[in-house]
């Protein structure tokens, strides 16, 4: 004769064990996700910290904007060459179909010049790159391209709550950690070099209302440039024109 009580007891124990195991599994899963999230965040902050630790560096970036609006789409590419000498000097050369511009910061003087038309404007700013970018952004509405890669205080400026990690990817022969996060209305995808020099090698920024931007960056962390490249000298027949804040 089979004892019904025993069967019930055995079934109860099995059920309890299964439930406990499932809870344990789900807990493990949650904790693994947290570890990955933490690592992804750390990858981002490590990258910004590493960039902040560099005194002198340069990079070339290819930026492709893809815009879709109504039934039309437009692709616009430009190349930017950025040279940094912290704390007070930078030079940015940007070229696209519509623009050929160089921006200089040298010891508190910010100048931008449109090379094809020979128009330029100079403003007195702060002596520090971070503060200058802040100043020209807030006071004049000038958004420097790739400013994120020029600042040394991104860990303070950027507060991202959740960063996702998608493993490693090959970006033009460099093994990179692939992370993504949301910031305001944009989704930012970053490919950060998986090495002791965790530089951002590529980025994609998707904003539903305006489109997508793809960026590929080539770095030189041991550049050889002189101080003179940061100093603006007006070319012959150039016009010094006025600058008003953006509305």
């Amino acid at each position, binding site marked *: 004769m089979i004892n019904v009580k025993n069967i019930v007891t055995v079934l109860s124990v099995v059920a309890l064990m299964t439930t406990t195991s499932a809870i344990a599994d789900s807990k493990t899963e949650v904790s693994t996700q947290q570890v990955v999230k933490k690592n992804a965040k750390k990858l981002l902050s490590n990258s910004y910290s590493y960039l902040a630790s560099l005194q002198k560096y340069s990079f070339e970036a290819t*930026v492709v*904007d893809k*815009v879709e*609006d*109504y039934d*039309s789409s*437009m692709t*616009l590419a*430009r190349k930017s060459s950025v040279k940094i000498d912290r704390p007070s000097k930078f030079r940015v050369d*940007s070229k*696209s179909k*519509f*623009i050929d*511009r160089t921006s200089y910061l040298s010891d508190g003087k910010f100048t*931008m010049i*449109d090379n094809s*038309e*020979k*128009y330029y*404007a100079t403003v007195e700013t702060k002596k520090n790159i971070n503060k200058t*970018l*802040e100043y020209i*952004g*807030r006071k*004049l*509405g*000038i*958004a*420097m*391209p*790739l*400013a*994120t*890669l020029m*600042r040394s205080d*991104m860990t303070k*400026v*950027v507060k991202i709550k959740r960063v996702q990690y998608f493993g490693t990817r090959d970006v033009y022969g460099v093994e990179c950690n692939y992370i993504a996060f949301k*910031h*305001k*209305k*944009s989704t*930012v995808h970053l490919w950060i070099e998986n090495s002791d020099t965790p530089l951002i090698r590529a980025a994609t*920024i998707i*904003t539903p*209302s*305006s*489109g997508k*931007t793809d*960026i590929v960056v080539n770095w030189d962390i041991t550049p050889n440039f002189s101080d003179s490249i940061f100093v603006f000298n007006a070319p012959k*027949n150039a*016009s*010094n*024109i*006025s*600058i*008003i*804040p*953006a*509305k």
Partner: protein
Amino acid sequence: MINSKNKSISLTKFIVVAMFMGLFSPSITIQKSSNKNTLASYIPSSMSISLLNSAEARRGRGGARRSGNRSANRNRNSNRNVNRNSNRNVNRNVNRNVNVNVNRSYHGGGHHHGRHAGFHHGGGYYYGGTYHPVARFTFAMLTAVAVGTIISSASMSSSCETIRVNNINYKRCDNTWFEPFYEGGDLQYRAVPNP
């Protein structure tokens, strides 16, 4: 001797008849530069000399076919679709104007933060950021430009002249003068009285 003489007479006759028919009449084509108001426009960009081009050859093939061509041309002329097509082109220009508006939204509401300027709290902390000029008006759109009208550098026609007055390089388009200035990071032009 007589044979060769006859041959040369026949050849001469043939050439004379052929020239009358226009087969060997030389045609000279000079193509001028399309760029107006420049020195280059007065210099031919290319010149071709040929003994036989398609038009000449067609003409040279005699009057027998002309009547046939005429009737074909009549048919073409009677086709009113030609006029309709030109109307369509006008509509296409209107569509271009819509694209100008597209540019405006593309450049972040017509202002100076580039795309994704909002990334990392705005104010320029972003990856993408552009200097692309905002197309407020295209010069071609404007029949009469009032003083104070602002157009973007992207909308400035390349045919406008650059004239330096008091160390400023103005743009002159027809008889309208434009003074350059920066509005934030965008190069703009404002219509001004004759400086």
